């Protein structure tokens, strides 16, 4: 049953891919076929993976081709199923949205190709999450990378888009290279490429190999996840893609990195050495903080959201790192708590970041710009988009009672409990990481005040913004699905947590949910009786109930009564008359205090040119330019690129262009390989 559902999902997607490509001459049909197939496939995938997740069983599907070395084995275990559920929910909402979003492009762009790559990306993602053979995994991984590449460069006539796509492709392949080496090391130790033969294997090889394989996997998967310092492609590639693709990229494609790490660190490794968890926790903190700090400086709405993906990957990795550390310290219950926090945040991020990118897509389509400084006042023209975006903004800022709060709270609890697990100085890492998480969350709230208020509130800052129209019905429906998801995952936390039981059972051998839910399912607690911390409780449902009751009993009647006494008048603005959009606070001005406070990081540069005729006090024209340093590109990747180019230049010597010489090279290589083979 599960096998049938899962495989029919894959088949529907692939059939949709072929069909929409074949129908590319009729854009309206291609769009409908492509989006319907994506939606149908997602729902089938959702049914199959939800069944696995709730039953806690594992389904193994053998495809009737391949050979013993390269099997095409699919294994749908709870961890795979969880990521598949995330994929399916997000993909369903995005496909719904795409019905409307792509209509604008009809006749201008090849929607058949879009449908093809979209319906190729989705099954490749599903297979990345379920492949149980290193060869099969890497094939699915590459198909995913290529399908993402073509979706990113869909608007390829802009040079910036092509450049960003190329950067993505290069980084992605560098990451795949690292993964390939790591898998080969494991395969040479086990003699097989099957994941089942890798189980706990990584802890049996020599410590040097263990460490190397760990770092290879961390950075190999980290490239895809957007881990600092291998994140540089992410803020370039996500914004240039069409917005429905950005939602998928940020929501689920980068989560393949998280899935890979979960698979490797909790399945291939036994309890790892402590330093590994420390490295993950440290990199998580760095990603979270740098992600949000760079996000604050953006006024390109989609780039801002892309930087927040890096921030949230950091938060997920903080939970992950803590889980790894607890595992080394033998604290299975705490490891389960931290892992649940990380995985919960993974799902939450897929939902609210997907929502925010879809909202940004509607805004960009309505205003024809990604620059926030040219938007404004959209809450009146696009009320549904505004409400959905606001819900996403509250959720991503980790504010109660929505879903971001729940997973951040779980992360805090895990970090706090860590302090008592060891006597070494390492334990200081936990509360320090916790306090930096608090800084990250507060900066994220500041950033989303900007990201919501500047585009949606006050007066329109450009003519395009003043003429914006609410987006079409399918787009609103797609956003509404995810907005409801944010609310449900927040208020229904105690009903959602038991889902993790089968995952923690599989990875850590404990079922944690019974210890996490208290007060007859009303409140979430960090669990009692393990570690030194009993943990506090939260009840998001209770909070929501309080707000609802208070709102219905007091706010509504009083607001209606006061309304009769209120008049609508001009803005007071300390008595300055004639407020125009030019007087409004801009996104740049909003983040100026933080730019000055963190100037050591940003190294801001600004240039003001004033033209004047009579006196410098009366300028006739002013040109203002301000930018911050792209530290990683300049200091890390710049030198690296130069080295690579220099090395390539030196290697030019052996490229003579003579076919005889090349044949000689092939011959020499062959001899060497034969010698190697005979010796080995």
């Amino acid at each position: 049953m599960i096998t049938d559902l899962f495989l029919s999902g894959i088949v529907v997607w692939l059939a949709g891919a072929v069909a929409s490509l074949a129908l590319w001459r009729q854009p309206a049909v291609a769009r409908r076929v492509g989006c319907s197939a994506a939606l149908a496939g997602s729902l089938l995938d959702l049914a199959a993976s939800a069944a696995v997740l709730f039953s806690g069983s594992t389904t193994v599907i053998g495809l009737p081709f391949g050979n013993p070395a390269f099997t095409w084995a699919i294994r749908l275990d709870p961890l795979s199923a969880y990521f598949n559920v995330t994929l399916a929910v997000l993909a369903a909402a995005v496909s719904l949205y795409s019905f409307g979003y792509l209509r604008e492009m009809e006749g201008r762009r090849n929607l058949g190709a879009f449908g093809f790559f979209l319906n190729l990306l989705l099954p490749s993602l599903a297979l990345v999450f379920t492949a149980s053979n290193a060869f099969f995994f890497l094939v699915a991984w590459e198909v995913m990378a290529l399908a993402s590449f073509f979706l990113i460069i869909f608007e390829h006539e802009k040079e910036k888009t092509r450049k960003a796509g190329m950067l993505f492709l290069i980084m992605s392949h560098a990451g795949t290279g690292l993964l390939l080496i790591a898998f080969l090391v494991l395969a040479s130790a086990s003699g097989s490429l099957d994941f089942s033969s890798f189980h706990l294997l990584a802890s049996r090889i020599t410590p040097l190999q263990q460490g190397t394989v760990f770092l290879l996997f961390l950075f190999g998967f980290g490239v895809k996840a957007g881990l600092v310092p291998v994140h540089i492609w992410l803020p370039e590639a996500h914004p240039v893609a069409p917005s429905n693709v950005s939602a998928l990229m940020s929501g689920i494609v980068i989560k393949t990195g998280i899935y890979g790490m979960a698979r490797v660190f909790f399945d291939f490794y036994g309890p790892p050495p402590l330093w590994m968890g420390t490295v993950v926790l440290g990199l998580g903190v760095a990603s979270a903080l740098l992600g949000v700090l760079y996000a604050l400086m953006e006024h390109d709405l989609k780039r801002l959201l892309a930087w927040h993906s890096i921030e949230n990957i950091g938060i997920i990795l903080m939970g992950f790192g803590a889980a790894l550390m607890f595992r080394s310290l033998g604290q299975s219950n705490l490891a389960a708590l931290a892992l649940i926090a990380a995985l919960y945040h993974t799902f939450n991020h897929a939902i609210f970041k997907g929502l925010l990118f879809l909202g940004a897509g509607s805004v960009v389509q309505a205003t024809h710009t990604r620059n926030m400084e040219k938007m404004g006042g959209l809450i009146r023209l696009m009320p549904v988009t505004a409400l959905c975006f606001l819900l996403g903004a509250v959720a991503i800022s980790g504010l109660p009672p929505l879903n971001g709060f729940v997973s951040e709270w779980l992360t805090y609890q895990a970090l706090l409990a860590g302090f008592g697990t060891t006597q070494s100085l390492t334990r200081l890492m936990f509360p320090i990481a916790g306090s930096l998480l608090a800084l990250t969350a507060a900066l994220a709230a500041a950033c989303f005040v900007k990201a919501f208020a500047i585009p949606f509130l006050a007066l329109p800052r450009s003519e395009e913004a003043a003429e914006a129209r609410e987006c079409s019905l399918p787009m609103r429906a797609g956003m509404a699905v995810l907005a409801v998801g944010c609310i449900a995952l927040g208020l229904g936390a105690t009903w959602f947590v038991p889902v993790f039981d089968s995952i923690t059972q599989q990875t850590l051998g404990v079922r944690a949910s019974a210890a996490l839910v208290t007060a007859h399912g009303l409140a979430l607690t960090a669990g009692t009786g393990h570690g030194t911390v009993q943990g506090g409780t939260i009840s998001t449902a209770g909070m929501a109930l309080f707000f609802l009751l208070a709102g219905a009993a007091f706010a509504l009647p009083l607001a209606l009564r006061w309304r009769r006494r209120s008049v609508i008048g001009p803005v007071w603005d300390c008595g300055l008359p004639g407020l125009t959009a030019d007087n409004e606070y801009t996104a740049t001005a909003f983040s100026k205090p933080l730019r000055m406070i963190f100037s050591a990081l940003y190294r801001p540069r600004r240039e003001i040119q004033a033209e004047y005729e009579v006196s410098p006090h009366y300028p006739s024209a002013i040109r203002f330019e301000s930018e911050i340093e792209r530290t990683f590109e300049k200091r890390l990747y710049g030198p690296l690129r130069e080295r690579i180019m220099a090395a390539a230049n030196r290697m030019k010597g052996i490229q003579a262009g003579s076919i005889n010489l090349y044949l000689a090279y092939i011959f020499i290589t062959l001899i060497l390989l034969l010698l190697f083979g005979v010796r080995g």
Partner: protein
Amino acid sequence: MIQRLIENATQLFLLLVLAPLVTGVIRTLKARLQTRRGPGILQPYRDLRKLFGKGMVIPETASWIFTATPWVVFFSTILAGLMIPMVAAKAPLGLFGGVLAVIYLLGLGRFFLALSGLDTGSSFGGLGSSREMTISALAEPAMMLAIFTVAIGAGSTGLTEIAGAAIGQTWRFLAPAQMFAFAALALVLIAETGRIPVDNPDTHLELTMIHEAMILEYSGPYLALVEWAASIKQLVLMTLLINCFWPFGLQPTWFGFGALQGIGWLLAKLLLLCCAIVLLETVNAKMRLFRVPELLAVAFTLGSLALVSTFLF
């Protein structure tokens, strides 16, 4: 059930009634210390009554965010207030959340206030929002370190447990970890409640305002709600500080003569803290905005010291 209701109702009453009083006491004490007469400690009540009776002007540029914000701020502050121990160690709504939830609920209110500041399009509102979000973000890590120190000592982030652990250990606040954490949290309290030297609650000079700038466009009942919520927030943070660190007189339960005694102690401790704030506000001048990060860095350092001292001493 009935017991729960009584606890909640009593604490709600205390929050609503005490909050303006605390503001009034601070203002009057400050005036006296500066040899002015001051408006009297009941003035905030009179202000609220007057404002609730007035009509109001809604700016034509504002959206529904502007009208929703006072309610969100008011209710989230009240909810946070019900989660802290005031009279007895048991927080009435402790099940709904501990100290983290309190901070994040206050954060929810701030988020909406900042939105409403930008909603009207007035540049002063934007200025206030920008500064408020900046300062609160910088205050957050110091606050969390101090809270972690306390929570680690109590073994929980639940405020009932934290206050419960403090009961009976009257002199515990002399421990180095507690003293550092107290100092850190006190500095954060000053920043969060917008008091001198970070912000001046009495100022109406445009360019120095932070909190006042955000709510500049509010009038009538909505202004009353926002002002009331601000004073409740101040009371909540002050109570949090005194009941976590000076547990004298905190009752284990809510009932009997003990509750009255608990209220008496609460008032005495609040008065003491008010005096300290007044003294601090009178002898200090308001800082330049870009000096505030340094103050908060001091708070962060104190918080780190608190954490280190939990296992050094």
